[in-house]
């Protein structure tokens, strides 16, 4: 399916071992980069490849690295965000399970490019099995000299620590992740200053998603042009699309950035089961505004989905079949954000709880259009006014559900 068979995710289950990774030419790119390249050229190559963040915000990784102040006496840190908690997303888990060494190699290259000697991988608390394997892989790499001091005979070293989260969705937000990693309550910080300048332990810090970092070796091995050729001009490479819900073959699919949503659902995930049709699709994890069946001819890349009024987010596609009550979807969505709001800022803390109360009242006692208007009004009170993106992540999908399925919801709550 992919040119040259270069895949982020190897297919066989034993591929995670160092031996298997070395057979595939593993760590050769890192060796080449660390021994022959200048850090500034590495950043330039990644910038040129337009590697957009795979975690949700879609910010170009190379540009992010460029924000880290050059030089400076203090330490700099690399944090890999493996707190994969966006509902409908299960791709980083596969990277960690099947290609942990590829992540480590990406970390070596990133650390070299930015001048980092110390890295953390923040793994979602629920991923116990995943992080056990990750730790084993790191131990293998350390024993073989791919992690630790004096890598590839150079003076460079990288120390890697795996940290387990405790199961809070908010810790996937980069500054909340840093707070949690520092041993405090996982709550977002005010930005600016951005982590690239003031991050972990008040030092410059690069934070990238697992998939983003694991993609880095490809770019350095085959060049930015090759990478861009696999994706789009402003959004390079392939992505891991998680597909769940009413499809015949749910799973994670590695496909070029910009693959049409309809193709992913109907061709790769096998389409809906016999006799069912699509009622709605959430294209980028729960936080992405819902799309109606008529809106599915959209390319799965950051800019196209943004133009379509939704977002690519973490590329977690949830297919909702005909016959599903949208009031239930609205309830599940409202409940999730009301539960996961960290409680720090006012609009998110109280707004999400208020919306949930209204939705629960509508489910139990019914209501009218004014109640739906109230939900919209509350979502608008949250949107763009919160400390971190969780506010928008809650307000946008709720707003979209109520707007796009208004007549159904009005019928559902009428008593």
């Amino acid at each position, binding site marked *: 399916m992919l040119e040259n068979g270069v895949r982020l995710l190897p297919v066989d289950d034993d591929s995670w071992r160092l031996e298997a990774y070395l057979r595939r030419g593993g760590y050769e790119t890192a060796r080449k980069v660390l021994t022959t390249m200048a850090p500034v050229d590495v950043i330039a190559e990644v910038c040129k490849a337009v590697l957009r963040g795979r975690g949700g915000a879609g910010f170009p990784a190379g540009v992010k690295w460029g924000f880290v102040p050059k030089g400076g006496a203090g330490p700099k840190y690399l944090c890999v965000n493996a707190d994969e908690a966006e509902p409908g997303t299960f791709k980083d888990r596969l990277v960690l399970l099947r290609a942990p060494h590829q992540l480590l190699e990406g970390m070596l290259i990133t650390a070299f490019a930015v001048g980092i000697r110390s890295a953390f991988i923040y793994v979602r608390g629920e991923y116990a099995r995943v992080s056990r394997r990750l730790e084993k892989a790191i131990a293998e790499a350390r024993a073989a000299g791919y992690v630790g001091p004096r890598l590839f005979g150079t003076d460079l070293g990288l120390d890697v620590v795996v940290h387990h989260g405790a199961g809070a969705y908010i810790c996937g937000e980069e500054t909340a992740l840093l707070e949690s990693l520092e041993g405090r309550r996982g709550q977002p910080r005010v930005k600016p200053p951005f982590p690239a300048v003031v991050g972990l332990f008040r030092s410059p810090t690069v934070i990238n998603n697992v998939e983003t970092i694991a993609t880095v070796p490809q770019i350095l091995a085959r060049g930015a042009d090759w990478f861009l050729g696999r994706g789009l001009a402003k959004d390079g490479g392939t992505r891991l699309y998680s597909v769940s819900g009413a499809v015949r073959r749910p799973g994670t699919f590695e496909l070029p950035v910009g693959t049409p949503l309809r193709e992913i659902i109907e061709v790769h995930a096998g389409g809906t089961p016999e006799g069912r049709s699509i009622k709605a699709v959430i294209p980028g994890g729960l936080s992405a505004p819902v799309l109606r069946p008529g809106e599915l001819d959209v390319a799965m890349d950051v800019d196209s989905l943004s133009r379509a009024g939704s977002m690519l987010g973490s590329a977690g596609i949830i297919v909702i079949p005909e016959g599903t009550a949208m009031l239930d979807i609205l309830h599940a969505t409202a409940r999730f954000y009301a*539960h996961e*709001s960290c409680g720090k800022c*006012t*609009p998110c*803390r109280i707004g*999400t*709880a208020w919306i949930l109360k209204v939705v629960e009242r509508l489910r139990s006692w019914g209501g009218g259009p004014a109640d739906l208007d109230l939900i919209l009004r509350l979502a608008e009170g949250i949107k763009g006014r919160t400390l971190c993106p969780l506010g928008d992540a809650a307000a946008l999908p709720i707003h979209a559900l109520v707007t796009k399925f208004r007549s159904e919801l009005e019928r559902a709550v009428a008593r």
Partner: protein
Amino acid sequence: MNGKKQVCLTIDGLKVQVAEGTKVFRAAEQAGIAIPHFCYHPGLEVEGSCRMCLVEIEGLPKLELSCSAVVREGLVVRTSTERVREARKDVLAFLLAEHPLDCPICPKAGECRLQDYYDRHGLFASRMVEARERRAKKLPIGRGLLLDRERCVLCTRCVRFLQQVTRTGELGIFERAVRSEVGIYDGAPVDNNYSGNLVDICPVGAITADDFRFKTRAWFLARRPSVCPHCSRGCAIVVESVEGYPLRRSEKRVYRITARENPAVNGFWICDLGRDGRHDIDDGRHVAVTENGAPVPGLSWQRALAGVAAAIRSIPGPERADKIAVLLNARLTCEELALAKGLFVTGLGLRKVFFADRKPGAADDLLLTAERMPNRKGVLAAGFTPRLPALAELAGAEVLLVFGEYLPEHFAEEDIARTLAGIPAKYLFAAHAGPLDGLVDAVLPVAVPAEKSGTYINTEGILQSFSPAVRPCPEVAAEGAILACLANSLGISAGEADAR
């Protein structure tokens, strides 16, 4: 300003020039534009969580936090556009949706930000038909403080104060989302000497002091500035007293002492010792002249002072140096000390001018000093060499004037009694009742610092003038007035000093 580069920006059409690095919020403040806020406090790190201070900054798509946005050259800020007003209303609507609205019985009513801001920026009808969260309403959190979690707006000022200022960290936020609440850790209540500040900085009535709760209402309080006399720091304070209703005779006047901002001395905080100073103003006060331990109705301090002057005059000039002894203290203002110097040292030529002060206590590393008198530096500046006398040094005197009630802190009462019994004429000038009262011929009631005007020099050498914050009782006089009157009746010019 601090030699920093100046930056020009426009706020609501006003051109403002501020130092580089200033936050938009402060710049607006300097331009006289108040931006509503809950979590921002100039003495604490920016939290950015209440979202009340959002403003419009030209060129930026979203509303920005004025408390954390830093000024830039040419920045155009708008603080009261439709969008900003809408955002404020929404924040207020959210906060009020989970607020108990028990203003009629809330001690913060009248000085509550939520109340004030609703009045100024809200005024909408409630859309909340759902039930509020129910939470603990009167949770003791230590040091006489009570926490009402329903009123709390989770601005975390209290939490941050204890983390960043006292570094004791007794309070934390527990739970998540709408269940978030402020609390103490198991068995570790708030216990530090700055706990009262939590009440001051709480923008709503979530943390209240047992001492103030249900005693009066904020709108009855007259707030006047003064300087704290309880250690040598000289913190800026506000003395909050009730002058009219509901005060009856002999009822307390000062309901509260709160911190006043003074960047040069105390920043934004005062210690609990200073806050408890309200007892010093109202409790155990002498309100009339007493003779031999009993109040004398109708005897004015001026007439009592005539007796003092007569006693002094009865000692022939040459013998006065050794036969008249005076005890002063470092609570006297610089002006009073100058008068005392002119009267006792220069005028009467006394050799026995001593000082009896409060004993030093333990200092902390924040504001409280070991020295517990406010004007030690002023005593030195007035040219005194303050020294506590041995009782034997007082024994030979025939007239003794004691200013202040601090002698019993240094000597056993029976020793003082024995010494004073041997002195034919002895007078006490004291604000509070104490063990000396029965040992002297007469006690003339004097004012406490909050009732006076004057100047103190604090431990760092900073001169601070203050005016009366409360009116003393009619028969109570400041030492300055007493010294001036005494000098006058003895025909001594005690100098130019102010004898208000």
